[in-house]
């Protein structure tokens, strides 16, 4: 475990500028503003090899470069604090404990890409964090860190808090933009991407909370220093949110290169009641279900990619033997069915049909043909859905069909090893 981007959270009064500055806060911003040109800032971020921490792992410096390259006089920086991926509660720690670090990251981003206005979109469920941010913004305005002529320089930036209202899809950047505009959060067709056509049609940079929290530290310490954390392909640290059937649940900061086994057994103290681990879902409900045999996989973008797995938001859901794979998939697909915005056909209908097939199998009326049908629907969703929601929704289905095919076959034959389902009226096995 390390304390790098989480070094302020819980250690300082989140609304004290003095305490934040005493521990190195705003050194990154001041260095950028006084000693670096916007393009030097972007180069530094590119050199740091920072990749987006919200789920898609897109290279941050490159995204900044796209926005900076646009000629428009009006541009926006948005912080995506719509942390809605089930099992993810890592941004909450930063939002509550270190709001000024995130704002500083936004300020550096605004300086680099040429924006003067920012928004932080915080999910409606985090009402406490919204209040903290409104207060932090007020403090920084009064101290001359937000507004016009910041620190006496020819740089202006101000920001507003916007609230979500309970929609998972708004974590997707174009849906989030729609929501800030006051519309239902339905994803847009892409391209054009937000760096060209974002909020109110203007070039817009959207970064996740944790991504932005890295920025001040990269700039103040330099990209080379930053790259000492992590692995060759994945620099830095990652906040992970561990939940499910483990002894210690919570948010931990680890270096890239840590294995899932170390996280579960060393950091989190193993499985509750010494039960057998069944699988780990990495990256939230849209993530892959990984069997015990792959626990030595490292948190590393390239290593995971070789196995066709994404790190996603860094949520780690640990599941023991008492959970039935099919019942779990039913719950997951129902979630996506509910959260689908309904705009594109493959996501709207795909989730609905997978729910129906799973129900059929659980009730003992399934056939092997149903498994092929599910793979077909899942593949179409993955390849042709409009946004990340529909593309990632069937990940858990495809990975469980790969690693736990036996359990699907058992249900088709009227048996549930966890005793959760009652196919063909079988008696419950585990009570």
């Amino acid at each position, binding site marked *: 475990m390390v304390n790098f981007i989480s070094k302020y959270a819980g250690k300082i009064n989140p609304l004290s500028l003095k305490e934040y500055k005493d521990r190195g806060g705003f050194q990154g911003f001041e260095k950028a503003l006084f000693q670096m040109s916007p393009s030097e800032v972007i180069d530094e971020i590119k050199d740091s090899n920072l990749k987006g921490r919200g789920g898609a792992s897109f290279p941050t410096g490159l995204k900044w470069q796209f926005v900076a390259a646009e000629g428009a006089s009006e541009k926006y920086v948005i912080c995506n604090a719509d942390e809605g991926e089930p099992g*993810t509660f890592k941004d909450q720690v930063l939002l509550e404990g270190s709001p000024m670090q995130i704002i500083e990251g936004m300020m550096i981003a605004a300086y680099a890409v040429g924006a003067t206005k920012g928004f932080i979109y915080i999910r409606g469920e985090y009402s406490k964090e919204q209040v903290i941010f409104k207060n932090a913004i007020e403090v920084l305005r009064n101290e001359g860190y937000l507004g016009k002529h910041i620190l006496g320089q020819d740089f202006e930036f101000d920001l507003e808090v916007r609230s979500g209202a309970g929609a998972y899809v708004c974590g997707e950047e174009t849906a989030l933009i729609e929501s800030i*505009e006051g519309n239902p959060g339905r994803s847009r067709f892409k391209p054009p991407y937000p760096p060209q056509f974002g909020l109110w049609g203007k070039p817009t940079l959207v970064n996740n909370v944790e991504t932005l929290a890295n920025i001040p530290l990269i700039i103040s310490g330099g990209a080379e220093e930053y790259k000492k954390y992590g692995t060759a392909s994945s620099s830095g640290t990652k906040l992970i*949110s561990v939940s499910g059937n483990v002894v210690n649940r919570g948010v931990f900061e680890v270096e890239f290169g840590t294995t899932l086994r170390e996280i579960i057994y060393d950091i989190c103290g193993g499985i509750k009641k010494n039960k057998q681990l069944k699988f780990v879902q990495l990256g939230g409900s849209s993530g892959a279900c990984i069997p015990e045999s792959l626990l030595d996989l490292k948190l590393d973008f390239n290593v995971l990619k070789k196995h066709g797995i994404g790190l996603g938001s860094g*949520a780690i859901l640990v599941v023991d033997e008492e*959970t039935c794979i099919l019942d779990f998939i039913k719950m997951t697909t129902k979630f996506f069915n509910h959260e689908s915005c309904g705009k594109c056909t493959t996501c709207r209908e795909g989730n609905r049909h997978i729910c129906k097939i799973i129900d059929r199998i659980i009730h003992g009326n399934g056939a092997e043909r149903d498994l092929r049908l599910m793979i077909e629907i899942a593949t179409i969703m993955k390849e042709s859905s409009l946004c990340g929601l529909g593309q990632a929704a069937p990940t858990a289905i495809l990975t469980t069909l790969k690693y736990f095919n036996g359990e699907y076959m058992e249900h088709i034959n009227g048996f549930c090893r966890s005793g959760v389902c009652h196919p063909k009226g079988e008696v419950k096995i585990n009570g």
Partner: protein
Amino acid sequence: MDERKKIIEIIEKIGATPDKLIEILLAVQSLSHEHYVSEEQLKLIAQKLNIPLSKAYGVASFYSMLSTKKKGRYVIQICNSGPCYVSKANGIVKALENRLGIHIGEITNDQMFSMEYTSCFGACHLAPAIKINEEVYGNLNPQKVNQIIDKLIKEVV
């Protein structure tokens, strides 16, 4: 028309532009013990923001924290996402259903409690967790659920 005045005040405070619609709807809904935005209120908001009623309704019905239907004084939201699911959230649902005599999606006869599922609200380290109005309750078991309901009933009486 005290309520009308209050809503106009809210709109003026937040700003009468279409991008503020969600914030206004959340604020107006919080006025109501029944946790919903009525048709009359929607009409007024649409008129003040100069947007069609269909747009206001479209937004109010899209987001799960907004409702156009009456709910209980205490809205019990049970998380049914992965982390709470594997921590046996269905046992909590059963305990609540037995205690209140209603199912998910229903409201008690005295309009005190309504129950609904919700997606993850980030209390996974406390799973199984529920939310009652703004308050999060975690590490639950059926006994704790009963104690919480007892406490809420006493609060009102």
